[in-house]
């Protein structure tokens, strides 16, 4: 079952396949792929952000994409959602090539995707209730009574039914993300993408978000993609983990295997080491040239 992922064309000198020692959780079937990424490349100007990634994300379960800041994780989510166009390669979501769809087809696909942005991305001129109702009002012709019931159910699922009438400016960061989660599931999507859900949260909020991501995934039985650099929280809920660095996959496997991996890339990331394959120093001339002899151009 797992061989399919191992067979992907990932740069041989860097990739470390994590041993297949743990059984996959029930329902985490890698052969039933929802998102298939092949040879994906994306650059901004001359800087390569994503450099030839291959990835399979199963239809059910939580897949974590981890890696240091600035390595293209959020960009990858935007590419999956069709908000960015790749330089090369393809992304298929539920059998549809995202970047070959017409606008109307892409929007139809997005109705089946939920996305939680790092900031929550709540519409600031609408109340919590109206934010969650927004996709329902835009895409359905449900009666006002039914919309009210659905919205309150979604808010109840994230524990914020009592905050329905608050404005986004009255919410804490953690509450805003929970409202965004309720909004993301309002159309009962087949997948939810979480962009850095734990960043800047206090331990209690982190715990709540971890619990909600796990529970929502279990209850809705969907595909969840969590992009994060919060190691402990992410590993505690993920069924499968991809580790990205400099736009390439440097390892993938189950969370248990990540923790014991001997890959220097993964070790540096998991253990939070200041120096390693991701260097402490930004590339520069030697200290001698730069500071003593003054040979380099400033």
């Amino acid at each position, binding site marked *: 079952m797992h061989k399919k992922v191992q067979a992907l064309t990932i740069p041989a000198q860097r990739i470390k396949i994590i041993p297949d020692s743990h059984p996959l959780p029930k329902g985490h079937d890698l052969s039933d792929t929802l998102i298939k990424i092949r040879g994906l490349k994306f650059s901004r100007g001359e800087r390569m952000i994503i450099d030839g990634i291959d990835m399979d994300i199963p239809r059910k379960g939580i897949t974590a994409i981890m890696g240091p800041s600035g390595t293209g994780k959020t960009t990858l989510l935007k590419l999956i*959602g069709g*908000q960015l166009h790749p330089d090369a390669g393809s992304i298929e979501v539920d059998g549809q090539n995202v970047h070959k769809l017409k606008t109307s087809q892409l*929007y139809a696909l*997005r109705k089946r995707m939920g996305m939680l942005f790092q*900031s929550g*991305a709540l*519409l600031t001129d609408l109340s919590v209730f109206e934010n969650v109702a*927004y*996709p329902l009002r*835009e895409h359905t012709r449900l009666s006002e009574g039914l919309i009210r019931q659905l919205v309150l159910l979604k808010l109840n699922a994230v524990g914020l039914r009592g905050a329905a009438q608050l404005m986004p400016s009255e919410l804490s960061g953690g509450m805003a993300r929970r409202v965004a989660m309720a909004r993301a599931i309002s159309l009962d999507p087949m997948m939810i993408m979480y962009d850095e859900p734990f960043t800047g949260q206090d331990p209690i909020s982190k715990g709540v978000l971890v619990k909600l991501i796990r529970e929502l995934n279990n209850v809705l039985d969907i595909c969840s993609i969590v992009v994060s650099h919060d190691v402990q929280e992410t590993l505690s809920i993920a069924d499968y983990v991809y580790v990205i660095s400099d736009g390439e996959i440097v390892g993938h496997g189950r969370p248990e295997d990540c923790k014991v991996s001997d890959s220097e890339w993964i070790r540096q990331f998991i253990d939070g080491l200041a120096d390693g394959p991701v260097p402490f120093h930004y590339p520069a001339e030697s200290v001698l040239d730069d500071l003593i002899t003054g040979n380099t151009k400033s």
Partner: protein
Amino acid sequence: MMLLFDKLQSLGHSSLTSLQRLGRGHVFLMQVLPAMEGMLFRPGLLIRQMYSVGVLTLLIIVVAGLFVGMVMALQSYYALVDFGAEDSVSVMVVLSLLRELGPVVTALLFAGRAGSALTAEIGLMKATEQLSGMEMMAVNPIERVIAPRFLAGFLSMPLLAAIFSAVGVMGGYLVAVELLGLDAGAFWSQAVSNVDLYHDLGNGMIKSAVFGFVVVWIAVFEGYDCVPTSDGLGKATTRTVVHSSLAVLGLDFVLTALMFSE
């Protein structure tokens, strides 16, 4: 020599950047114009923006119009009284307001108040990922956010210019008749007999519609295209006011030359 090349390179780069922005602005406009039809089915979006862009700009327009009209009357009186032509004060005030000051000053105030607010609002929505969030909810932000603001601004400008001119004339009346003691009948009869509905009022309205289109185009584009940082947002807001003002003044010359040349 190297310095010269550096200067040339810098000039070329900034020229290319400006051309790119101009191109993006036109592509953006081509996306916004077809999205207007959505307003037919959701008039509520337009009405909300008309309030935000138009009604909330009313106070500054009324106050400015009143004072401009008063100053115009005063200056005209001082200039004309030496020639015994003070009865023509109303003609000076009304024609200046309808042809030039109404559309131009309203557009400048509109750019400063509503234009900068539009840029800041849209830019902040971009910076806080609200526009991206809408896209991911399969909602086109051009239709839901940009088009209502664009149409509201375009429709509001001629109305605001008309109010500016009307209040300006009243300000001129107050100064000329109530303060300086000119005859009220002469004031109104001179004004009515020397103003042509199409040539003066009509052209003034056309001017204000053109200014409204340009100002609101610049404002929403700057917001939508801004770098989503506090610095980028600040620069975009400044650009809106500066570019809009220059565009209004430049266009005013062109339109005046076309409309009022004999």
